[in-house]
C-alpha cells in the first residue's frame, strides 16, 4: 500500500516535471527580445508558481495588435477599468457560478464563519517586478481604508456589528480576516466586487495597493508630503504606479487626447498552452468630448471592440455600415431590470403626497397605466423586454412571474385602483387628493439621450391619461443627482441596473442609503444607524432587518433564500416602477477580433466585460 502511494506520488511528480519543461512558458515577441537583451528576467521567473490559466472562449490566440477604443475623459475611468478587472477573487463568467479564484488561489472560512483565510498565489509580482505579498493588503487596510484622511469610513463589508475587521498576517502569502460576526458580504462585495487595487478611478474602493511604491508618498511614512501627493500617486491615471493588471497606463496627462496602456510583462495569467497573457500589445483609448462623436467613430469602424457609451439608437446606422468598415454588431443583454425606473419618493416632505405614494395601490395603478410595448417600440427599437423592475432571469435571485407583476397595460384597472384610494376625478379629467386639494406630481430626470427622454414623455403622458396631473423636468446630471439624494424629488428616475446581483449594493431593493430614491430619507436613516434621516414605516424596517441578516450569513444557499425574499417583497410592493428591461448593449466588434462570445449578460457590478478576461482577446491577422 505504502509502496503504491510512493510510486504514485513519484510518477505524478515526474509527470508534472515533464509537462513543465516540455510546455514551458511562451511570451510576446517584444518581451522575448527584452529578455535576450538582458533587460527583463525570463518568463518563468516573471510568472508566479501557479499562474491562473484562462479558459479561452474561442481558442488560443496570437500575440500583437492595438485595441482601439473610445472614452469620454478622465471621469470615464471604467472605459479602461473594466478591461483590467483583477481583484483578489473574481466574479464568475456565468453569474450562476460561485466566486472564482483571482490573486488569491484559495480561501476558506472557519467553522463559525468569523474568520476568512486567503492564500495568495506564490511568486506574484507587481508590474515593476517587486513581489506582491500580504504587506500590500495590510498597507491598504491600515494606511488607506482606516486612515480618515483618505477614507471617510471603512466600507460596510469590512465593518460587522460596528467593529472593523482585524487582519492577521500568517506569512507573505497567507492572511486571515477576522470579524466579530459571520460576514456574508466578504467574498462577493469585499473581494470580488471591491477586491481590486485601490482606488479604481473615482469609486475609491479596493483591497490592496503597492506598498513599496506608495509608502514613500504617504504622510505617515514621509512627513515631507501631504495627502494630495498621496492621492496623486495612488491614482489609477498615474503612469509610474505599479499594477497587477494585464495592461498598465503608459501615456496620459493633462491635455492628452488619448490614453495608452501597454502590456504588463509580469502579468500572472497564461492560456492552457502556457502563453503568457495578454495577447494584445496595447490599448489606445481616444478621447471624445461628445458621446455622439464617439458613436460616429464607432459607425465608421474606428473601434476594435467596444460597447461602452454606444447607444442602441445607433444600431440601425451601425448595421448599415458594418460591411463597409469590416465589423459586426452583437446585442448582449444588459442586466438592467428596467432601462429606466420610476421611484415614487415615499419619504417626500409633502405629507399628503407621502401618504399617497406610500399606498401600494397607487404605485400599482401607476405601473399598469403604462403601455410598455409602446415604450419598447419608441425608445428601444422593439428589442427590450417589457417587464416590471426586478432581477433578470440570469440572476440567482430570480423567481419566474415577478417580472410581469403589474407590468400589464390596463388603464381601466389603474383608474379603478385610483378611485378606490380616494383620488377622485374632477370635471377637468384630473384627480384631486383625498382632501380635495389639487394633485400634481413632477417627474424629474437627467437629460441622458433622446431614447430616455422619449420614454419619460410617454410615461408622463400615460399618467396624465389616467387623471394624475404629471409634469416632467429634466436637468443636468449634477443638479439632478444632488436633488434626488437630498429627498427633494417627488418622482425620481434612473437606469436600474444591478439586475444580476442586487444584494451587492441593494439601493434599488429597499431604502439602503440616500441613493435609494424610493425613500432617500429612510435610506439615510438606515445608513446612519438611525442617527440621520427619518424613521421608516414598518414594511421598510422589515426589509432592513432581512438585509442585516443577509450580511451576517456566510452560507450562500441561506443567503440566496433571504435575497429572494427581499427581491420578492420589492417586486410585490412596486417600490420601483419598471417599463422595459434587459435592453441589449450594442457591441461593435471588428471581424478579426476574437474570443468574444455571441451572448453575454453585461452588468456593472460584474464589471462587464471584465469577467470575459479581456487579456485573452486577440487579433486574427
Amino acid at each position: 500500500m505504502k509502496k503504491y502511494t510512493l510510486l504514485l506520488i513519484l510518477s505524478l511528480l515526474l509527470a508534472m516535471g515533464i509537462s513543465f519543461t516540455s510546455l514551458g512558458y511562451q511570451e510576446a515577441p517584444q518581451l522575448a527580445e527584452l529578455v535576450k537583451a538582458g533587460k527583463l528576467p525570463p518568463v518563468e521567473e516573471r510568472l508566479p508558481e501557479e499562474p491562473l490559466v484562462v479558459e479561452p472562449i474561442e481558442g488560443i490566440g496570437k500575440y500583437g495588435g492595438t485595441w482601439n477604443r473610445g472614452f469620454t475623459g478622465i471621469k470615464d475611468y471604467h472605459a479602461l477599468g473594466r478591461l483590467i478587472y483583477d481583484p483578489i477573487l473574481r466574479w464568475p463568467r456565468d453569474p450562476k457560478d460561485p466566486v472564482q479564484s483571482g490573486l488569491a488561489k484559495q480561501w476558506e472560512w472557519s467553522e463559525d464563519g468569523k474568520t476568512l483565510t486567503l492564500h495568495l498565489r506564490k511568486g506574484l509580482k507587481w508590474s515593476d517586478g517587486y513581489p506582491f505579498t500580504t504587506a500590500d493588503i495590510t498597507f491598504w487596510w491600515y494606511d488607506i481604508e482606516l486612515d480618515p484622511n483618505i477614507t471617510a469610513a471603512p466600507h460596510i463589508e469590512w465593518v460587522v456589528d460596528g467593529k472593523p475587521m482585524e487582519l492577521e498576517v500568517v506569512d507573505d502569502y497567507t492572511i486571515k480576516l477576522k470579524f466579530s460576526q459571520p460576514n456574508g458580504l466578504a467574498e462577493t462585495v469585499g473581494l470580488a466586487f471591491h477586491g481590486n487595487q485601490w482606488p479604481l478611478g473615482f469609486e475609491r474602493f479596493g483591497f490592496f495597493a503597492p506598498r513599496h511604491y506608495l509608502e514613500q508618498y504617504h504622510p505617515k511614512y514621509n512627513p515631507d508630503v501631504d495627502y494630495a501627493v498621496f492621492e496623486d500617486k495612488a491614482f489609477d491615471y498615474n503612469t509610474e504606479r505599479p499594477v497587477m493588471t494585464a495592461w498598465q497606463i503608459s501615456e496620459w496627462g493633462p491635455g492628452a487626447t488619448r490614453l495608452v496602456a501597454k502590456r504588463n510583462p509580469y502579468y500572472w495569467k497564461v492560456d492552457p498552452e502556457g502563453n503568457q497573457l495578454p495577447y494584445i500589445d496595447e490599448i489606445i483609448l481616444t478621447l471624445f468630448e461628445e458621446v455622439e462623436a464617439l458613436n460616429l467613430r464607432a459607425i465608421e469602424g474606428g473601434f476594435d471592440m467596444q460597447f461602452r457609451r454606444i447607444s442602441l439608437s445607433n444600431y440601425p446606422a451601425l448595421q448599415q455600415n458594418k460591411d463597409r468598415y469590416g465589423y459586426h454588431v452583437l446585442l448582449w443583454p444588459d442586466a438592467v431590470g428596467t432601462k429606466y425606473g420610476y421611484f415614487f419618493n415615499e419619504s417626500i416632505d409633502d405629507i399628503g403626497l407621502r401618504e399617497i405614494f406610500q399606498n401600494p395601490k397607487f404605485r400599482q395603478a401607476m405601473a399598469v397605466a403604462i403601455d410598455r410595448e409602446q415604450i419598447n417600440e419608441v425608445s428601444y427599437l422593439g428589442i427590450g423586454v417589457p417587464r416590471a423592475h426586478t432581477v433578470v432571469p440570469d440572476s440567482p435571485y430570480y423567481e419566474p412571474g415577478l417580472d410581469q407583476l403589474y407590468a400589464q397595460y390596463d388603464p381601466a384597472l389603474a383608474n379603478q385602483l385610483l378611485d378606490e384610494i380616494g383620488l377622485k376625478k374632477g370635471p377637468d379629467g384630473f384627480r384631486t387628493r383625498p382632501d380635495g386639494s389639487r394633485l400634481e406630481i413632477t417627474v424629474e430626470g437627467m437629460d441622458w439621450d433622446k431614447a430616455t427622454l422619449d420614454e419619460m414623455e410617454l410615461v408622463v403622458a400615460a399618467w396624465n391619461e389616467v387623471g394624475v396631473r404629471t409634469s416632467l423636468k429634466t436637468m443636468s446630471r449634477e443638479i439632478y443627482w444632488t436633488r434626488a439624494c437630498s429627498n427633494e424629488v417627488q418622482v425620481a428616475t434612473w437606469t436600474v441596473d444591478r439586475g444580476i446581483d442586487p444584494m451587492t449594493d441593494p439601493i434599488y431593493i429597499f431604502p439602503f442609503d440616500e441613493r435609494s430614491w424610493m425613500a432617500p430619507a429612510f435610506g439615510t436613516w438606515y445608513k446612519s444607524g438611525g442617527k440621520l434621516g427619518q424613521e421608516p414605516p414598518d414594511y421598510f424596517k422589515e426589509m432592513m432587518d432581512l438585509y442585516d441578516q443577509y450580511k451576517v450569513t456566510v452560507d450562500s444557499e441561506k443567503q440566496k433564500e433571504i435575497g429572494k425574499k427581499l427581491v420578492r417583497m420589492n417586486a410585490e410592493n412596486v417600490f420601483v416602477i419598471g417599463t422595459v428591461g434587459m435592453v441589449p448593449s450594442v457591441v461593435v466588434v471588428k471581424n478579426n477580433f476574437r474570443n468574444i462570445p455571441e451572448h453575454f449578460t453585461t452588468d456593472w457590478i460584474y464589471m462587464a466585460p471584465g469577467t470575459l478576461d479581456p487579456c485573452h482577446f486577440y487579433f486574427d491577422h
Partner: protein
Amino acid sequence: MNDYQEKSNYIKKLYEQQSNLDQTIAHQMMSSEKLAFATSQWRMMWRKFIRNRTAVIGGIVILLFYLVALFADFIVPYTLQQRMTQYSFLPPQRIHFFYEGKFQPFVYGIKGSRDPNTLMRVYVTDPEKRIPIRFFIRGEPYKLMGLFPANIHLFGVEEGIVSLMGTDGQGRDMFSRVIIGSQISLTIGLVGVALSLVIGAFLGVYSGYFGGWIDNLIQRIIEIIRSFPPIPLWMALTAALPSHWSPLKVYFAITVILSLIGWTWLARQLRGKVLALREEDFVMAARLSGASNWWIITKHLIPATFSHIIVISTLSMPSMILAESALSFLGLGLRPPLTSWGVLLQQAQNIQVLLLYPWLLMPGFFVAISILAFNFLGDGLRDAADPYTV
C-alpha cells in the same frame, strides 16, 4: 422773469414765421419734383421702404410667420400631445393635389414595419389606398391662443396620417411641432426686444441728454456688460436659474437674461443720437418754455429717435431668436416638454438623425428663414429711416 417771457414770445413768433414760410415754400414746390419735402417723414420712409423689394418680402414673411404663430393651434393637424407611435420616424409624406384632373389633395396610406436586420422603422405606401385631405376638419380639441376652446383644424385626415414634414421618434407630427414651436421662438424675440427697448431707450436717452457723471456711469456699465462674451454669460446666468422652476418661468427668465445684454446696443446708439439732438433748437425751445426734463425726453427726444429704435429692434430680433435656439441647442435654455425651434433642434442633435432621419433638422430651416427675413426687413427699415439720403 420778464426777460424770459420776452424771449419765449420772440421764439414763438419766430416759429410762426417759420411755419408760414414753410407753407408758402411748400405750396410753391407742390408742382415741382421736390414734392417729397412737403410730405411727412413717415410717408417718405414708407415710400422708400416699399421700393426695397427684399425688405418688403422679408416683412411679408415675418408677418406671415407671426400670423401663423398666432393661429398655430388651428393651422396644425395635430396637437403637441398627439403621439402616433405606430408611425414613428415616418419620412415626410408626398401630398398629391390632383386626382383624375380634379383638385383633390390626398396622401397614400402607409404601412410600417421594422426591418429585422437593422431594426429600423420602414414604411411602404399603399397606392391602393387614397386618403383625402379634408379642410376644416374636426380633430383633437385645443384652445386657440390659449383662450378659446375649439376643435376645428385647418386640414387633416380622417384615417391614417398626414405628415408634411415627417414624424419624430414618438410619432409626433413635425409640421405641427415646428408651427407650435414658432410661438415660443418668435415671441421670445418680441418679448426680449421689448424689454431691452424699455431699458435701452431710457438709459440711452438719459445718458445722452444729461451727460456728465450720469453719462459716464451708464456708459461704463454698458462697457462692462459688453465686455463679457455673450454665450458664456448667458450660460452662467441660465445655469443659475433655480432648477425647480416651471418651464414657463424658465422661459420668461431666459427672455430677461437675453434682454439684459440686448439693451446695451440700443442704449449706445440712442445716446449718440441724443447727444446731437439735445443741441437742436427745438430742445432749447422746449427747455426755455419751461418743460421738464421728463417732458423733453418723453415728448421730444424719444419720438425723435423712434425711427432708430424701430430699426435697431428689428435688427436685434434675429439675434434674440438665434440666442434662444443656441441656448436651447446647448441644453441650457428651454427644455422639453416646452417646444421651441431650439428645443426641436436640440433633440435632433445626434448622428442617427443626420444619417437616418434628416427631416428632423427641418426646424433649422425655419430658424434660418425667419432670421434672414428679419435681417432683410431691418436693412430696408434702416435705409428708409433716413429718407433724406439717397
